[in-house]
């Protein structure tokens, strides 16, 4: 990662209160995103990836609190006042969502959405310039200018997602966070949207944090990948290396259980993802991990670099110094009855 990262997150925690207790959705997470780089954040539902994506922009549900550092342009976004944060959201940091059908105000034309956004952040633009720039950005995501004055309900799901992307890109943000942008779209439209997102680098010079549960999308669209489990990033590194030689057992098992055109036999991970209110002690994955050792069940693993530009949190990779004697022995996993299986 030659030049300075656009965003570097250090020891970020995002917890929110619920009736049953505090959910530790993001639990001491650290990662960087390089300028014009695509970082894929993958994990199963309920692992906290969505909260992380929104937490970076400070868009948290009521009763949520964040702690730690989200460094952008030399400033820590955690703790900024809502006014300062909303000043950054848009021109600096963009966010697009999973469900496009309800993300546009049904009473406003597409033109009004763009006018409102540009007048807010770039008041010096004239009427013509606003129209010019909006149509140009919409054209780049495949929306024809003839439909600029139409209402949201006159567009299909795929078209609305394109409009949402254009709305984020019209302000030329340096970083775009995409939270499962294609999950609710058909596979061909999904590929069309992914092509647009993957080309952000070339067309807009924008870095992308792509959040998804689909390992195929990560492989095809991302430069680097971070694997998240139960609120923690258990492994991250260049996509090619991580897919070729997964360091963390969860990454390996997840890859094996993904059903793709090449799958020859079915594989699944026993047990169920833990609830984030009181996750298992030590390494959160240990109850389901085939390579579990005694130390895993009580001591939290430490970040280790198993190779160049890679990181993993797993005692398999040491450091040996931190593992007390005799603790490296394997732990036979008590039979996990299907009863508490996912």
């Amino acid at each position, binding site marked *: *990662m030659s030049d300075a990262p656009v965003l570097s997150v250090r*020891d970020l*925690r995002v*917890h*929110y*209160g*619920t*009736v049953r*207790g*505090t959910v530790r959705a993001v639990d*001491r997470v650290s990662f960087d995103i390089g300028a014009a780089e695509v970082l894929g954040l993958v994990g199963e539902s309920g692992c906290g990836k969505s909260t992380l994506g929104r937490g970076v922009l400070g868009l948290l549900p*009521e*009763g*949520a*609190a964040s*702690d730690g550092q989200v460094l952008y342009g030399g400033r820590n976004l955690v703790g900024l006042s809502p006014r300062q944060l909303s000043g950054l959201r848009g021109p600096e940091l963009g966010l697009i969502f999973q469900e496009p059908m309800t993300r546009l105000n049904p009473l406003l034309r597409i033109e009004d959405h763009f006018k409102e956004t540009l007048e807010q952040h770039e008041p010096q633009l004239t009427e013509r310039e606003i129209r010019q720039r909006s149509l140009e950005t919409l054209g780049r995501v495949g929306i024809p200018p003839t439909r600029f004055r139409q209402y949201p309900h006159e567009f299909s799901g795929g078209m609305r997602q394109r409009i949402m992307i254009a709305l984020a890109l019209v302000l030329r943000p340096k970083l775009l966070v995409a939270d499962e942008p294609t999950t609710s779209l058909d596979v061909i439209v999904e590929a069309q949207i992914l092509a647009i997102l993957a080309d952000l680098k070339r067309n807009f010079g924008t870095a992308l944090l792509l959040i998804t549960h689909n390992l195929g999308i990560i492989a095809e669209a991302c430069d680097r990948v971070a694997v998240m489990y139960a609120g923690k990033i258990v492994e991250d590194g260049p996509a090619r290396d991580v897919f070729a030689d997964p360091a963390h057992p969860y990454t390996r098992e997840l890859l094996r259980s993904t059903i793709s055109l090449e799958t020859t036999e079915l594989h699944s991970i026993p047990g169920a993802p833990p609830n984030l209110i009181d996750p298992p002690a030590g390494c959160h994955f240990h109850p389901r991990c085939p390579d579990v050792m005694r130390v895993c069940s009580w001591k*939290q693993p*430490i*970040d*280790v*670099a198993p*190779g*160049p*530009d*890679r*990181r993993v949190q797993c005692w398999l990779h040491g450091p040996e110094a931190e593992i007390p004697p005799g603790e490296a022995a394997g732990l036979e996993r008590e039979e996990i009855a299907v009863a508490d299986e996912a």
Partner: protein
Amino acid sequence: MAIPVQPIESPFRRRARGLGRAVGPIREARGFPRLMLYIGAGITLLFVLLALLAPVISPYDFDQYQSGGHRFPQLASPSSGHWMGTTVQSTDVMSRVIWGAQTELKVVFISLVFAITVGVPLGLLSGYFGGKLDRGLVLVMDALYAFPYLLLAIVIAFLLSNSIGKGVLTAAIAISATYVPLYFRVVRNQVIALREESYVEAARALGAKPLTIIRKYVFHNVVQNVPPIATLNAADAILLLTALGFLGYGIQPTDAAEWGYDSSRAVSDAASGIWWTALFPGIAIVLLVTGLTLVGEGLNETMNPVLRRRRVQRVNFDQEPEPPIVEAVEGS
């Protein structure tokens, strides 16, 4: 392989558990909705007690104008003998307020029962089966729903009054007739939404007869939100009943005390500055209607998922279960 069968749960305990699940959200209510529920329930209970214990609590009968041979003073201001003063017919205002509670709650209860027993089943059938029956009913109900319901009630009361008299029954029928369209609409819209749910379609796929599906799958999920509507509706019904009474189409004054009727008598008193004959029945109405509305709003707030606000525990980072770990050696 013989499967050890647990002792079967007694049907009563199952009902209790089922009910417990429905009441669950109410126990969880917090903050203002809970306050509303408790205050509302308190006020409503007070009036229910007044109604039930009227003969015991009330110092005099509702139409008693003299005791022990001598007549009560006319239009006497509140005094020790008559805490709320007396009316021009020298009846005791407080007794009429207490007995009035009995009349109001009785009529409102009967009218609710009528409206629900007619409106809900019609809504269920029309919503589930659709077709011509549904279209016809919807048109009729919408025409009724758009009609000024006080007017409707007056006309019905007027017509029934000369056949079955101005008794409790007339008032109850008049009121319930105006609320049948409300229950019909609410239940019908709910059933139409439910019919699209997978588990209702699954029931059809299992081969269940339509009536079984309505009974076991649709009814329970619909009936759960009739209570909030019924309580708000009861509050409305009291306003309607007192309005009818005020216009002279409520209960026969000789049959029972009724706050609306008392208020209409108080109009002439007010002109000459006598306030108590108008104030106390009026306050009774406002209190009871507010009480019922508070219960309805409280129920609505706790049971309607959109409005529900669950008590969330505050987040604080300091009491952190795991010890903070030291920053590992950076890979890159």
